């Protein structure tokens, strides 16, 4: 399991590829699923110029670890990777990546979805968007669909 908070922009696909290379588990996994969430330049009908993602140092990391542990208990996974940005974020920047490696695709898809949905609903992150009308806190999660 690897859990990371990134204060600077990161390249999610490079991170996943590098993690898989270091995993050194070729032949063991038959499935890898990856979710990448990026910053949109629109929300709630407004153009968004940038945002600041605040977190609770210590509790946020602990919570991400707990979510990953819960996924590992629920499905037979070989590896879980979560990386989440914090701080100042611009449109098109990657915000989060969740990746799962497992023997079969069923648990890989389900666990990856579980990670991102749990993370969005429970992990202590708060978005402050910068719009033409000034800054605003985002009060609720975006819907999944």
């Amino acid at each position: 399991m690897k859990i990371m908070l990134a204060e600077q922009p990161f390249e999610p696909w490079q991170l996943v590829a590098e993690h898989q290379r270091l995993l050194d588990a070729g032949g063991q996994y038959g499935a890898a699923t990856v979710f990448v969430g990026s910053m949109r330049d629109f929300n709630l009908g407004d153009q968004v110029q940038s945002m600041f993602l605040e977190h609770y140092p210590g509790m946020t990391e602990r919570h991400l670890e707990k979510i990953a542990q819960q996924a590992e208990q629920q499905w037979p996974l070989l590896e879980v990777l979560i990386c989440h940005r914090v701080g100042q974020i611009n449109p098109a920047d990657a915000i989060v990546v969740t990746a799962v490696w497992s023997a079969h695709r069923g648990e890989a898809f389900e666990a990856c979805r579980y990670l991102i949905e749990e993370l969005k609903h429970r992990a202590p992150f708060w978005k402050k968007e910068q719009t033409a009308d000034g800054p605003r806190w985002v009060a609720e999660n975006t819907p999944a669909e």
Partner: protein
Amino acid sequence: MPITVKFFAAMKEQTGKDEERLPIGSMATVADVWKAATGQQEMPEHTLCARNMEYVQPDEAVTDGDEIAFFPLVTGGAL
């Protein structure tokens, strides 16, 4: 040891407080900590509370040295 109180996001702006330390005095619950830290204000609806970095309800008991945090609903990464 005093109790450490932390506020995050909009709640930090609303209370004008980031972090402070309070003697436990007669505080028995997380809700008591809120009142002591905010000058007896009512806790806004939907406030989330954490004790030592775990989610708890406002009626959770507190002890010396605890870290108590108050914050609004969380907003995770964009889908």
